[in-house]
């Protein structure tokens, strides 16, 4: 078993467990990555969010030493992906969604044993890790089942256990919940969050085109399209890019409620729900205090039943940055 030394060396002056500098990759004349520069911090879940064909998988392939960049530099745990790939391989792992890894004839336990041996894990340590991971991923009752008899969800959970079996310092998750049902996706996301929280000094780079997943899991997100990074920030920071005004939804009780301009507030939508109950959607500029809005609505004995603030979605952020939605980009 290899001893992890990367953290002791503090990534050999690179300062980040993952760092790319002006990374480019061409497949013939097609540009898959066009000058990507990212810095991922230790202990972080870093997301790459973009539509299919954005360059996410190409970036992961370069960082996992499966592919060489055409130009630029990439470092993982302080090692150069081009020249020091052997050192990187001892310390990383990868999980891709929608894959059928392993051999149908083996059981889940045997599959995990097989892949653990590629990392030189002693048998005692292997047993311990299989037990830990199967507890975390709820694989315990299925360890003796043959892989060919597993459902898609169980198979992906086994695949995730395989990826974490060598306790990597840095793990690359390429659409890890692709093709999973809602419950399995929730379990996988819970596991990922728990792993990075409980294990010190681990780093996760995750690609997804699922906005909800990116927002729920990632500390920071880079929005990527056509091989270029458009923005990189926390989910909140990204949303603030599009949030010039706040949007609120109210349910109110009033005799009648006129659609009108109230000072700096704009009623975007109004509809009668039932009897004297109305739904209204209001846009308020960021610099106007919320109390003023409440005061305005309560005029004429209007009663507020409920309200909620509408946050912009990452989809809106993407549209603002790229000028098109995911679907439009994928259709092109």
């Amino acid at each position: 078993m290899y001893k992890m030394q990367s953290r002791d060396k503090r990534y050999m002056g690179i300062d980040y467990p993952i760092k790319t500098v002006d990374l480019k990759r061409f497949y013939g004349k097609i540009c898959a990555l066009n000058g990507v520069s990212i810095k991922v911090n230790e202990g972080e879940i870093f997301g790459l969010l973009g539509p299919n064909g954005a360059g996410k998988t190409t970036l992961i392939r370069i960082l996992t030493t499966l592919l060489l960049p055409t130009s630029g530099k990439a470092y993982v745990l302080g090692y150069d992906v081009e020249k020091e790939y052997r050192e990187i391989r001892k310390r990383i792992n990868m999980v891709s969604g929608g894959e059928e890894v392993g051999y149908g004839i083996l059981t889940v336990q045997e599959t995990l044993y097989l892949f653990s041996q590629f990392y030189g894990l002693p048998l005692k340590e292997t047993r311990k890790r299989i037990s830990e991971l199967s507890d975390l991923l709820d694989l315990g009752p299925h360890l003796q089942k043959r892989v060919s008899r597993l459902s898609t969800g169980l198979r992906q959970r086994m695949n995730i256990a395989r990826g974490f079996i060598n306790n990597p310092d840095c793990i690359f998750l390429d659409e890890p919940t692709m093709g999973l049902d809602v419950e399995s996706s929730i379990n996988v996301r819970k596991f990922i969050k728990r792993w990075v929280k409980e294990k010190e000094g681990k780093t996760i780079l995750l690609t997804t085109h699922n906005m909800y997943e990116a927002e729920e899991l990632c500390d920071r997100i880079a929005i990527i399209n056509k091989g270029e990074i458009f923005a990189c920030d926390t989910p909140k920071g990204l949303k603030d890019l599009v949030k010039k005004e706040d949007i609120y939804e109210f349910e109110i009780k009033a005799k009648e409620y006129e659609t009108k301009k109230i000072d700096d507030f704009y009623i975007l939508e109004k509809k009668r729900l039932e009897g004297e109950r109305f739904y209204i959607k209001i846009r308020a500029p960021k610099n106007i205090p919320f109390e003023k809005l409440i005061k305005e609505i309560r005029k004429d004995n209007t009663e507020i039943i409920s309200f909620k603030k509408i946050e912009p979605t990452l989809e809106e952020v993407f549209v603002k940055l790229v000028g098109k939605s995911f679907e439009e980009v994928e259709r092109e």
Partner: protein
Amino acid sequence: MIKKFKESFSINLRTLIARAYVRIVATHREGSWIFLNGLTGIISLASYVYLYRNLGAKKIYEGFVIIGSFILAFWINVLWSIASQLYWEKLSGNLRYFIIAPCSKMAILIGMSFGGIYMILLRSSFVLFLAFFVFKTPLKYFNPLLIFLTFFITLFGLYGLGMAFSSLYLLWGREAWHLSSLFQEPIYAFSGLYYPIRVLPIFIVIIFSLIPLTLGLDAMRQCFYGKEAEGLLNVYLELIILTFLSIIFIFLSYLSLKKMEEVARKKGTLIERWQ
């Protein structure tokens, strides 16, 4: 330096055992396979035995067929489960995980080979003993040490060639089954599986002697039947040539694996599923 070597040796030994384990487990988990596959082997073998009997050929020709059939099973395993294996691993999505693992890819291939040898040895031994028992074909000599040595060196050469092919299959970018078929059919005719290789023109003998099956088979027959086997060369000379070929194939497989990985990293398509 010593620590690094020990570390590397340990990881590669573990990899080798784990990859061999897959095939050993598969052999025992699908035990009926050995019986059914062995039975079909006996049936195809019987057709040649009865053909020789009808033609009034010498009795040892039946022995030729039995030994040929024993070795042939290994050659088929080499083509379909070693040479093609990286291609199947690519299709199943395992290959990229093999590549990013820190173990030597040679250890994976050697593990596959050991597992394959175990699997076929069980099946072929069953066929061999059943065939000698059913057809009552006589054995002239029995030198266990020489037989074991010849068999071992032949397998070394065959599986070495298979390992070299495994990366070349990916580099050639052809469908694995087309290539395996291409290598399988001519071998039936030109490696002397069912008759002594001597009957063929010398240039064919030289070309097909590059495949360890040809010389290995010839040497095995000589171990059992001596001069009556109408061997091509002296057994010991054949063993020296086979050893030499085996070393070349193993070295070639190391080089081709390295090349395959290099090309895969450059092109980005070689090891990816559906590409």
